């Protein structure tokens, strides 16, 4: 059962992420990213992290992607995309990406095949929200506060950057 769900949603994540990076129209790419995020959220549930799955849906799909769509509509860029770069550049990027992914897969495979015992069965302690909250507000309290500060700075910065510059006042006001 778990295997079937994994294969289904892993395939879905792969296909939709390929659509994200290849589709010419950024609106469709954004909507396809929603599918990717949803699939990854399901995989989070399989990995014993239901809280992260909820956060993924709420923050990513609910807030960040809505922001993307909003900006896309605001700018109305649509298909406006210049000619893609040189063949050589495309080929090099493909080669680099595939080689990097292959390297990571190999690394993970090697590491997992080592002497370390296979993962313990899913424990209730790992899934428990209380335990996660104790960790987050205990050991990582300082980092948590710093992240809050970061978000505040980002809000202020985004507001300043996106603000319409004030119209220049004529010197002689009647």
């Amino acid at each position, binding site marked *: 059962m778990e295997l079937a769900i994994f294969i289904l949603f892993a395939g879905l994540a792969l296909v939709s992420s390929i659509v994200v*990076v290849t589709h010419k129209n950024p609106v469709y*790419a954004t909507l396809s990213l929603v599918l990717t995020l949803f699939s*990854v959220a399901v995989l989070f549930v399989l990995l014993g992290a239901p809280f*992260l799955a909820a956060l993924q849906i709420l923050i990513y799909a609910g*807030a960040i992607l809505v922001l993307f769509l909003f900006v896309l509509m605001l700018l109305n860029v649509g298909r406006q995309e210049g000619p893609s770069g040189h063949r050589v550049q495309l080929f090099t990027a493909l080669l680099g990406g595939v080689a990097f*992914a292959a390297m990571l897969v190999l690394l993970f495979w090697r590491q997992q095949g080592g002497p370390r015992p296979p*993962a313990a069965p899913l424990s209730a302690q790992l899934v428990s929200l209380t335990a996660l909250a104790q960790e987050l507000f205990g050991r990582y309290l300082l980092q948590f506060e710093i*992240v809050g500060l970061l978000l505040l700075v980002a809000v202020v910065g985004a507001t300043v950057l996106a603000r319409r510059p004030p119209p220049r006042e004529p010197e002689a006001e009647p």
Partner: protein
Amino acid sequence: MSVPVSWYLALSAVLFGIGAIGALTRRNGISIFLSIEVMLNAANLSLAAYARQFGEHTGQVIVFFVLAVAAAEAAVGLALFIGVFRGRRTIDVNRMNLMQH
């Protein structure tokens, strides 16, 4: 049958590669951002997989932080694109070449 953790890690590596290819080949600024989000998600997946492997919460806490940083990055980046678009009427990264001239 339970799925080995290494499968999740392999999936995360492939997703990361797809996102990297997208970030390198796209011209539209927002498409590049979307590719970066795919890469961030791949990293999140591997962190959650390691949290599962070791039965600890640290990986999940880091995923939480990555989500918050991704939100901040998206907000500031999109605001930057709005600012650039206002001046130059384009978000094609090939045409943002003010520093070249």
